[in-house]
């Protein structure tokens, strides 16, 4: 599987926003995404994890070309789509869709669920009215909605049903790449599980590759094959799920994982945990050198390198990439916290 051409390749992607007025001191550049590279393999579910403001959503919006990247490149099945015009991009849109975070805002309140889901078919002129109705009915069944829901307006549906409609819209054209931007974080916990299960089943059946963005570690553990951890616009660690959960290298990943709960309270109490101090620095003025150094519990060990040199994301063991001065092939970062013991994932 690793040998196949990646479905999506992102290379040194940068997205800066200029903010505020040019006059006075209020202006500046927000380094939302800074030099991010990763690839999404065929049929893979890649989890992108990071706290609020780390640039996950900006990255997702750049990948689907809702934002213009400042620099870098995005390749969809080997084809560079970074600089395609909106018109040239349109035929390729069939292959790439996105599920939005807020199911209340992502559905046009003036259209019925059936119209919303059939819209991509209509716009790409892929099917006449009758065929469209059939395809819509088919995908409705697939995402677990009844045929009667096609005539409902979004405000007549529950949050979970709305997100199913959003999922149906994204998948009706059978795209090969799906970007899911926190698709369950606006839903009740009880509904979250059913949507996640659905997403996993659909991915297994339809075989699309999925970039799954979340801040919830339990979700990625359940769903994803590989995990990329983002901090302040940069990737700090990329590895398979098992590797990340068993053997996190980057101090930030370790801290993040130590915040995840273990089901057994006794075990939870005995875990060695690390709590990061302060807030993430402003992306308007990211720290020099390693971006994590201001909050890094291992800063004493990594100084002075980390104050000046930005650690590159490099492979420290097969398929395990880390951006830390303390981590190199053959030398591990000191363990500062116990990762949550991975419970074997069923299914």
């Amino acid at each position, binding site marked *: 599987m690793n040998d196949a051409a990646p479905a999506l390749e992102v290379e040194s992607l940068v997205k800066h926003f200029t903010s505020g007025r040019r006059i006075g001191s209020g202006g500046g550049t927000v380094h939302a995404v800074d030099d991010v590279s990763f690839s999404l393999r065929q049929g893979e579910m890649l989890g992108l994890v990071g706290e609020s403001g780390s640039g996950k959503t900006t990255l997702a919006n750049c990948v689907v070309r809702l934002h213009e990247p400042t620099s870098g490149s995005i390749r969809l099945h080997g084809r560079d789509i970074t600089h395609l015009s909106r*018109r040239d991009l349109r035929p390729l*849109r069939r292959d790439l869709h996105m599920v939005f975070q807020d199911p209340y805002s992502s*559905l*046009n309140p003036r259209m019925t669920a059936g119209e919303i889901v059939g*819209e991509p078919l209509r716009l790409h002129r892929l099917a006449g009215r009758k065929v469209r109705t059939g395809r819509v009915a088919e995908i409705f069944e697939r995402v677990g909605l009844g*045929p*009667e829901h096609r005539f409902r307006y979004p405000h007549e549906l529950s949050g979970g049903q709305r997100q199913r409609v959003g999922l149906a819209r994204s998948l009706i054209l059978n795209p090969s790449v799906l970007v899911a931007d926190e698709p369950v974080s606006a839903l009740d916990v009880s509904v979250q599980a059913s949507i996640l299960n659905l997403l996993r089943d659909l991915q297994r059946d339809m075989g699309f590759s999925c970039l799954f963005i979340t801040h919830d570690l339990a979700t990625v553990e359940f769903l994803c094959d590989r995990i990329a951890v983002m901090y302040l616009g940069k990737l700090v660690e990329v590895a398979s799920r098992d590797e990340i959960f068993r053997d996190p290298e980057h101090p930030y990943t370790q801290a993040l994982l130590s915040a995840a709960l273990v089901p057994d309270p006794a075990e939870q109490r005995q875990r060695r945990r690390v709590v990061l101090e302060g807030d993430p620095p402003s992306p308007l003025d990211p720290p020099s050198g390693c971006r994590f150094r201001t909050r890094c519990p291992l800063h004493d060990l990594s100084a002075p390198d980390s104050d000046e040199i930005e650690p590159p994301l490099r492979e420290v063991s097969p398929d395990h990439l880390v951006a830390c001065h303390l981590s190199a092939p053959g030398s591990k970062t000191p363990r500062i916290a116990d990762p949550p013991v991975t419970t074997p994932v069923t299914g």
Partner: protein
Amino acid sequence: MSIVVQEIEAPRVAGRRRLRLLTKRFLRRPMAVGGLLVALAFVIVAIFAPLLAPYSPGHTDFDAVLAHSSSKHLLGTDDLGRDVLSRLIWGTRASMQVGVFATLLAMVVAVPIGMIAGYYRGWVDQVIARLTDVLLAFPFLILAVGLAAILGPSLLNATLALGIGSIPGFIRIARGETLTLREEDYVPAAVLNGANDATIIFRHILPNMTNTLIVQATLTIPGAILGEAILSFLGVGVQPPTSSWGTMLQEAEPYLTQAQRLSVYPGVAIILAVLAFNVFGDGLRDVLDPRTTR
């Protein structure tokens, strides 16, 4: 069979259900219902003026000049012996015409401009928004009177002047709504569906601002009605002998001490019409506001 029927019927049912809910909410507001009824009455009178008016508006009866109410002339006659009721009914037609068409004109011109400004933003928006601000800096009536004076006095020109005067308000509303609506996630979702700008603007943004536009229209109509009366009173609107509420007021002015009723009747008509549309528009706004629960 029954399934087929259900599938065809269902979308209409969904639309009807919403309408029924809105009607129910509307009926709970007696003021708004009253406003609607009075406004409707004026519209009907305007449409059927030739059938309803007992005399033609120009018909003079020199045996009864400045006459009081009688069975022959229900509201009396004016200084030329013309039947006041007939003139009032024909005047309704002029007022409604100006009110409705001026508002339609303003909408047709302003909504696309406002939407383009709000959707594309950038320098287009800067130019349009600044020009709108300049126009809005003039009081509505001053602008309309000035335009009517330039265009020359007639019913059509009064409509044009009042319509143009209402444009900046509509631009501002359409632009503001577009700015808000384009931030909804269904707009980027449409981009990902492969929609072009026209599809996004007309299929996704415009239908979601119809409520606001309808309310703005029902509040612009009374403004135009009042504007017509003022323009005609000042002599830059409808010209005598054509009848309109404004010209009636103007003609009644010299007889203010002898026959106040000549001023009172058109005045009451203006007040009633403006009030009715305003109250109806306010009620409609409350009903269509999604935050309304009652």
